[in-house]
């Protein structure tokens, strides 16, 4: 492992400090957390601005426009990128109340396009394709004649096809709003609810894994930064954070008594 440079050591102190500031939220909302929070908002907006400027304005708009105009200044086509640029500016006129309505034209453009491209693609990928994969014969024609797969472990087996079908239909029925859930309808809807709960449970379990991974990631960094080569950054800063919190608590208590 290479010896850390001054920049990385400084970075380790900053990163470890900010990490601990945010974690102090687990104790309770406090000035250190608020400091980290606001810094975070500012930095991420700043980052977005810099990247958006370079990507959108320079790369997608300004450079192609300048190039096409300098190559063929008389051709009307060279100026075509002005259309999105104007629409983009129309979006910004929202801030001028008298002509704010102009921004609707830009919204109409964006939303119209979005709705248009979404319709056939949604029907294809999220409706037809899903129906296609649910409608399967329950029985297969094998070498030994007709048979029904009873293997639960194989997702495509006949028995799983039935379970899938029952699940999809009963959950769809649960989201049926025109009919009251009584009689056989109630049985189906109840079944749908059980299916939904099993799926949500599975998702919860899966998500636990996801969240713990994030914690593992942050802790690995903190452990790394607690080493001697980083000047025991984590440990020192942990002490600083805890002391600050104690001091802050004392201050708040004093103020409360003073009032």
């Amino acid at each position: 492992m290479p010896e850390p440079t001054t920049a990385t050591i400084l970075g380790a102190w900053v990163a470890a400090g900010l990490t601990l500031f945010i974690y102090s939220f687990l104790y309770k909302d406090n000035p250190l957390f608020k400091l980290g929070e606001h810094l975070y908002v500012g930095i991420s907006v700043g980052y977005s601005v810099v990247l958006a400027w370079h990507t959108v304005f320079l790369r997608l708009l300004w450079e192609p426009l300048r190039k096409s105009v300098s190559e063929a200044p008389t051709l009307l086509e060279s100026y075509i990128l002005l259309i999105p640029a104007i629409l983009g500016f129309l979006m910004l006129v929202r801030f001028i109340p008298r002509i704010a309505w102009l921004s609707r034209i830009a919204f109409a453009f964006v939303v119209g396009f979005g709705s248009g491209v979404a319709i056939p693609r949604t029907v294809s990928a999220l409706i037809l394709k899903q129906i296609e994969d649910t409608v399967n014969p329950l029985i297969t024609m094998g070498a030994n004649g007709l048979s029904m797969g009873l293997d639960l472990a194989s997702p495509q087996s006949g028995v799983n096809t039935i379970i899938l079908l029952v699940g999809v239909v009963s959950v769809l029925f649960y989201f049926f709003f025109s009919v009251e859930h009584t009689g056989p309808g109630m049985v189906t809807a109840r079944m749908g609810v059980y299916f939904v709960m099993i799926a949500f449970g599975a998702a919860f379990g899966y998500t636990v894994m996801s969240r713990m991974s994030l914690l593992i990631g942050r802790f690995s960094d903190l452990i790394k930064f607690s080493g001697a080569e980083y000047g025991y950054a984590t440990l020192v800063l942990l002490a600083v954070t805890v002391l600050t919190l104690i001091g802050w608590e004392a201050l708040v208590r004093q103020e409360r008594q003073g009032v």
Partner: protein
Amino acid sequence: MIFLKRQLPLVITFIMGVTFTLQYYIPHPVSEEAITNVAKWMQIISGFALFLGLASLFHVHAVKIKRQVPGWGYSLVLYAGMLGMIAVGFWSHGETRVDGAQTSFGWLYDYTMVPLQGTMFSILAFFIASAAYRAFRARSREASVLLASAVIVMMGRVPLGQFLVPWSWDVTQWLLNVLNSAVRRAILIGVSMGAVALSLKIILGIERSYLGGGRDQ
């Protein structure tokens, strides 16, 4: 004027919507060319939209600082973070790395933004544990089913669970592939129909809330 304010946007939405719905079914190069260009325009317009947000953020915190509302100091911190990042970003020409070497912009990104964002997210690990403790009770049959399936998946997805309770792996695979797929698929189909219905209503001018204002005026 009323036409420009009310009808024109609806006309544009209608034309854009119908054109790009039908575009999908038309493989001809002319139609492909159209979507190529317009998709690129959308990229640019979406970029402008970012600045709408920036202006609003500026405004909110400027007001806080001007009126010196409690905690206005944090707004200053926010301003400092934002302006600092922008200044450094432009100074580094928006690049985090040049020839493999980190720029100052890259340093700020790696040592402030990455840990801040990662830490915010990882707080979830604690919250999910406390949510599990508070909310995962076998209050009813539905809740018990939810709980059982969550516990099985939690075991089946990690080596220790697979080691202690070997069947949890197979059951987890089955839960995810069959039961979970069925529910997700039903939700997907239903939600997609809702999406298509809404898109249709927008194109036909029945749904206008995206333009601001009520639906039936």
